């Protein structure tokens, strides 16, 4: 029986570790963007490596959590949803890694006048995902509080959209000196950063439904 084994404890620890990985990945991502804008490539590469190792660890934990839930028949009624949630959260850290990798490869030339906006965009987008983590943790311990925690996710997602829209408007309407390829490239990078909050919103929608189901 699970109560007499360490399986339950191990699984709880693994889920917590998975959330820690995502949380840490988001922090490192913010620092990496700042380092890139400051042209500190050494710090940027260090952060990129850190995100890469966190993403690998998250993948390992995801697989292990799913295996344990199936083999020990844990949470049979919520297993599919919990697996989907973990998958959605894993997509966030995947997006962080791929965004940093693309920045590293493509080395976008971000005009210094946009630095402040870019930092604001990354911080707001990351904040949406950061607010998702306590909500996801709360699903397991206090599902009644999940919905109020998710409000912040939706708020930051909409703020990210506004900042992104504003940046795109500046790039395409005010920065006449940039050629179209450069503008398109910047839009592409903005889209990548913005995508983090979109993924957070997608996970929040799922979590919201899960919380209602478990509270009923």
């Amino acid at each position: 029986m699970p109560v007499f084994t360490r399986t339950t404890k191990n699984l709880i620890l693994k889920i917590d570790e998975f959330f820690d990985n995502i949380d840490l990945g988001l922090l490192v991502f913010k620092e990496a963007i700042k380092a890139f804008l400051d042209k500190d490539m050494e710090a940027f590469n260090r952060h990129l490596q850190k995100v890469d190792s966190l993403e690998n660890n998250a993948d390992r934990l995801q697989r292990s959590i799913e295996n344990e839930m199936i083999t020990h028949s844990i949470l049979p009624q919520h297993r599919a949803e919990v697996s989907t949630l973990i998958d959605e959260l894993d997509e966030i850290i995947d997006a962080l890694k791929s965004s940093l990798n693309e920045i590293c490869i493509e080395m976008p030339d971000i005009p210094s006048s946009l630095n402040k906006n870019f930092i604001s965009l990354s911080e707001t987008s990351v904040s949406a995902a950061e607010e998702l983590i306590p909500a996801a943790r709360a699903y397991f311990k206090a599902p009644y509080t999940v919905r109020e925690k998710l409000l912040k996710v939706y708020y930051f997602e909409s703020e990210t959209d506004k900042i992104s829209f504003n940046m795109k408007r500046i790039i395409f309407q005010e920065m006449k000196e940039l050629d179209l390829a450069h503008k398109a490239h910047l839009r592409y990078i903005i889209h990548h950063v913005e995508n983090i909050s979109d993924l957070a919103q997608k996970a929040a929608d799922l979590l919201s439904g899960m919380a209602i189901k478990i509270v009923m």
Partner: protein
Amino acid sequence: MILFFLTSGLFLGWSLGANDASHIFGSAVGSKMVTFRKAAIIASVFFILGAVIQGSGTSQTLGKLGAVNAIGGSFTVALAAAITIYMMTKFALPISTTQAIVGAIIGWNFFTGNRTDSKTLSTIVAAWIAGPVIGAVFSIALYILFKKFKRSVRIHLIRFESYIKTGLVVVGAFGAYSLGANNIANVMGVFIPAFNLQDLNLWIITLNSNQQLFLLGGLAISTGIITYSWKVMDTIGSNILELSSEAALVVVLAQSLVLFIFSSTGLSDFIVSIGLPRIPMVPVSSSQVIVGCILGIGLYKGVRNINFKVLGEIGLAWLISPVASGLLTFFLLFFMKNIFNINVGSNTGEQIAAAEQITNTMNYSQAYASSIIKYFLLGIFIFGTIGIAYYLLLTRKKKMGLQKSEEKFWMNMK
């Protein structure tokens, strides 16, 4: 010959196991909190324990309804009830063994010209009605308490579910014990007046004639659980109402409490000692109790969740089973008596003479039967131990294989 006459009782036990184990573990298995294999093993063991240790209480009530005083009659009554249950189980309809056997006994009373004790019958029918009502009340009260408790303690969902899983196993074991104690009378009760086996010394304990019959019935029930109860468990657990894990625990707990109330002589004596009326020791219909419990949860949650079609089918089965069983008994007795020329019992006035005749002719074969039972039990014990050891080894090997494959996967990834 004596063992042949027992086969209908064993068949009835098999039918009871196939059908009634679902009332204890159906919710747990249906909600996938407990695997069928685990549920079947626990239910089997505790059914047998309940039957052997505490099975005699409710047998007396059925004896009052109609004491089948010939072994041919016992055989036919049990066979008719078993065929009825088998047919209903075949269509995945949860029915009550109690109703089938009561219908069969009344059929025997009609055939032999014995009077059906209306007081006993009304007590049994009253318990049939009270069972689901008490079950519904218990399940609603327990569900509300459970929800409040869950909300007040901030416990991790996975840990909470693991406690529920353990709770389902413990409460299920308690329920199986109570059901064994309560319902073994349905299987072997009709054989008690006609059988008088020698005491059986099993080194640790000595079983009297009734306990040997209950043990054989218990083993038949276990076979029914292991071989055929999956289909009905699925109907109970999934079709009537989608049960959450805590609702599954509440349903099993409420049902176990109801069964306990109608089986425990200790509780009944305690109730009398505080000046309240005695609780009758009646074989309760576990089918009705479980439906009452699930309905209670459904009513609390809102009736939209309940599958009324399945409930209607179950209600129909409740009406059909005693009537069908009674009619089948009547016709089978007619054939047994007039075609095979077997003594199927007599009017109460002739009972003493018939009992004496049975005692004289069966003494040798009953002593022989006791030693067969002894070696049969030894065989079951040996094969059971080997089977459990093999299963544990297999499970361990499977787990280790999975762990190794995962480690290998991540080694390759690095």
